[in-house]
């Protein structure tokens, strides 16, 4: 197979994404490594959303719920471990942990269950109703977090020492970046395999023509529910990493601004494209730090850019660079 332009763009993106922090390490600029880590984490959240938004055509405006659940999984487990207080003692003992792997598993399970419940209700609607109901569920969880004093309420929860990963000093910026980058790679590979599988094709088919999908014996609702759950799990994993990056979780991670931001990365980078979320997250972080350092209203030009992408370049950044129009 010859390399098409999109593959070339993707390769350049991947190389730059890894090269920048490595060069930054050589130049002793840990802040840039932290920014690259943030790109990796946001991209991962975007990969999750892209699965339902890009391939399933489902505009979920509530993915902050899953991002925040991942974050709180890290925060709550770590705070119990650091205070030597078990989460519960009866009927059986559950203790906190500072092991990322355990935290991720908890984040994946909890987000999957919550997504299953939210999806089972919201996926019975479509269009603007789906957008509004996913938003409503996320806001419910947001207000719950604010009003629950046990884990900091509105003030959030600090993680005093970044959680650990076997064989890795996670406090070392480049090591933590490498961990996030590898996890992003795994998630993107998984997503690439998934969308080409029979399940992924059925998901795309259900977006293009749900009735036809039914006529070949596949119920769109179930396909979409499974996709919604997987999507939420990926976003929750990103949330757990984000909490560890900041060593802090707060209800902000659950707010609708966060849902909007994740959606912005995906749209900026290219909806329904594998590398779209990475390109979008990178562009977003770069703009935030370049424009943000000179002008406090940097979100105004971001909004204009978003408008331009939506109106004239619906393939997003990757679509424009690849020179191919592919409407979502």
């Amino acid at each position, binding site marked *: 197979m010859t390399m098409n332009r999109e593959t070339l763009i993707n390769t350049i993106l991947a190389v730059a994404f890894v090269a920048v922090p490595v060069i930054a390490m050589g130049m002793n600029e840990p802040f840039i490594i932290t920014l690259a880590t943030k790109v990796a984490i946001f991209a991962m959240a975007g990969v999750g959303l892209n699965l339902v938004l890009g391939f399933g055509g489902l505009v979920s405006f509530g993915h902050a719920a899953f991002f925040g659940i991942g974050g709180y999984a890290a925060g709550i487990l770590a705070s119990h471990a650091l205070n030597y207080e078990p989460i519960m003692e009866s009927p059986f003992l559950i203790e906190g942990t500072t092991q990322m792997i355990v935290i991720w598993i908890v984040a994946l399970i909890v987000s999957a269950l919550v997504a299953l419940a939210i999806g089972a209700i919201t996926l019975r609607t479509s269009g603007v109703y789906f957008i509004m109901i996913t938003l409503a569920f996320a806001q419910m969880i947001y207000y719950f977090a604010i009003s629950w004093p046990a884990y900091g309420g509105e003030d959030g929860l600090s993680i005093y020492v970044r959680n650990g990963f076997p064989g890795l000093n996670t406090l070392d910026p480049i090591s933590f970046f490498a961990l996030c980058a590898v996890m992003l790679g795994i998630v993107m590979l998984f997503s690439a395999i998934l969308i080409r599988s029979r399940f992924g094709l059925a998901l795309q088919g259900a977006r*293009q023509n749900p009735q*036809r999908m*039914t006529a*070949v*014996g596949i119920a769109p609702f179930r396909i979409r529910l499974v996709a919604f759950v997987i999507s939420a799990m990926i976003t929750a994993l990103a949330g757990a990493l984000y909490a560890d990056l900041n060593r802090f979780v707060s209800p902000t991670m659950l707010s609708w601004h966060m849902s909007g931001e994740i959606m912005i990365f995906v749209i900026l980078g290219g909806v329904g494209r594998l590398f779209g979320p990475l390109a979008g997250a990178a562009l977003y972080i770069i703009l935030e730090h370049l424009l943000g350092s000179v002008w406090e209203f940097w979100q105004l030009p971001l909004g204009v850019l978003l408008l331009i992408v939506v109106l004239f370049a619906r393939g997003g950044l990757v679509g424009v660079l690849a020179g191919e129009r592919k409407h979502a």
Partner: protein
Amino acid sequence: MTALLELSGVTAFYGASQALFGIDLSLNEGEAVALMGRNGMGKTTTIKTICRMMEHRDGLIRFAGQDLARMPSHKAARLGLGLVPEGRRCFARLSVMENLIAAARPGEWDFDRVAGLFPRLAERRDQKAMTLSGGEQQMLAIGRALMTNPRLLILDEATEGLAPVVRQEIWAAINQLKQSGLTILVVDKSLKELSGVADRYVVVEKGVTAWTGAVNELTDELADRYLGV
């Protein structure tokens, strides 16, 4: 012998307006039946009720020994109803191969066998469905229905609006399917081609089964009366 598909006294409504007033139809395993009638007489509505894209009101629809009343569409499809809908409707942004894989269920029909039936699809396997010609999309729609390994293939206006050469190609394929023993329900207007494929005709008029009989029993007079040919 019990029929594979059986409709008796089926009625159906679009909102308040009645479209079917009493459809009777039965199809045995291995048989090919042509559903005929002028435009607006209820052919497509009949097919919609069989495939559960529309709920019937009275009467009975049985397929493979099961009552289809209130069965969701995807479950009916899983029982072995393979529909090739009017207007083709392929998944435009998926490739030929992807369209077929998305529908696949285990059985004797796989990509290679579909490619054997329609060599043109094999040539275009990586092309997006939206870039195919009308005839090729029709072949893909038939291929997609076959990939579900149906017990009954339903073709709704399979050759409408296609060039004569392509029509012949598709009818030849339908004939081949019939020879292989597949049960087929076909809706079409061209008597000439139908007579080559079908064992029996079922004519609907104003939502009622008006006539049914073997292919050679349809006289010119009857054809003129029901079909206006």
